[in-house]
């Protein structure tokens, strides 16, 4: 994802604006619609991920791509292009990415990762359509508890989930502030 953001921000590659646009499109797709399309697509598409955790993982990738792209491009814009150019003068581009760009992007990467984690943790709309009893994310599990009338377990579970998400949000804020990058 950060590679796409870097291509959009720094290179003059033909069609990079299209990349940017495509990565932003999923923000307009409701979770339920995304779930149904994933089912239909992977029932016929020859990639055997239907009914596994991978299909949920892929759906989350699509769903959170727009936000991660924004976070990453904000982080990249903050890095002076001369930082990379100084490296390009004496190293191949892969070394520039690995030794200069990614270390400088780390705060943005961490912030983006925590943002996605805390949102994906309690996601329900998309996952409920894609999961089964073996692949059950937290949101779906809570919904199942509710359906079963196990309100005690549900309440306890809810407290734990809230705590975990809250703590990760705190960590994201601390990381963001330390490196001068704010996450909303």
């Amino acid at each position, binding site marked *: 994802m950060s590679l796409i953001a870097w291509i959009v921000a720094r290179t003059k590659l033909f069609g990079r604006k299209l990349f940017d646009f495509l990565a932003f499109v999923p923000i307009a797709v409701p979770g339920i619609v995304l779930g149904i399309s994933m089912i239909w697509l992977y029932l016929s598409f020859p990639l055997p991920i239907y009914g596994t955790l991978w299909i949920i993982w892929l759906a989350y990738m699509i769903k959170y791509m727009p936000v991660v792209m924004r976070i990453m491009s904000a982080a990249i814009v903050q890095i*002076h292009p001369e*930082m990379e*150019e100084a490296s390009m*003068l*004496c190293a191949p581009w892969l070394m520039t990415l690995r030794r200069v760009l990614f270390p400088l992007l780390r705060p943005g990467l961490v912030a983006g990762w925590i943002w996605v984690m805390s949102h994906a943790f309690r996601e329900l709309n998309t996952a409920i359509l894609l999961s089964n009893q073996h692949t059950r994310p937290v949101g779906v599990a809570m919904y199942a508890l509710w359906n079963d009338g196990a309100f005690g377990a549900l309440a306890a579970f809810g407290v734990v989930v809230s705590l975990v998400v809250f703590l990760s949000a705190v960590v994201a804020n601390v990381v963001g502030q330390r490196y001068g990058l704010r996450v909303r």
Partner: protein
Amino acid sequence: MLRVTGLKKKFETDRGASVAAVDNVSFEVETGKLLTLLGPSGCGKTTTLRSIAGLEEPDNGEIQIGSSVVFSGLRKFSLPPNRRRVGMVFQSYAIWPHMTVFQNVAYPLEGIGVSKIEVRKRVEQVLALVGLEAFIERPAPFLSGGQQQRVALARALVAEPEVLLLDEPLSNLDAKLREQMRVELRTLQQRVGLTAVYVTHDQIEALAISDIVAVMSAGRLVEFGPPTRYMTGPRVDSRRNSLAQATLCLCRRSSLWMERLAGECPGAKSISHISVKPSLTLW
């Protein structure tokens, strides 16, 4: 030796019009000489420098560094920047903040088959050259502007480049430090026998530091020659003369180099008698 022949580079504006940033620029820098590209902002001097480094792809022309052609528009050939054997000091210094001084300076030696002991030795040598040997283990964010500048210079020199490129390296320093660094830079360049291209918009700096000054305007090279070419005896034109006087006052304080130039300048007995030619007071 560096030779630039018929260099051309156009930029597209947002409205689709194209502007010639560099228009048919040719020059040659002999080994061990320092050439300054002088001109107002937007005259194409930085684009020329970045083309030599390979950070910008020219539309046409030829660039030769040492014995190898690194760019040829005719043959559609362009060597990637890391294989051109150039060192560059950027305007922002571009010191990597997540590394120490040692790591910054050692970086260009990585991956070219230099042993660890040899790396250490060469980094220490080059840091001694710029007077920073005591700061070798210091993390980059704990350096002052002047120190960052020296690290940038050390990093540009450590792999023994054929050509050193300097993009307004002194413009972020305060006036006093700028003068000091200018003298140091010149001394270092002459001592090591470096071939260098120096970009600046500052006339004083150009006259004080160069073997050859190339004045650029609107993408073209308009005048070319040693600093003395731009100096004449006392002028009557008072407005221009006051600029020249101010210029030379600064020069006198900063470098002995200028005294020598005064001796070579026709019609001037001492440095206070020189004034600067109109082509240098365009902006």
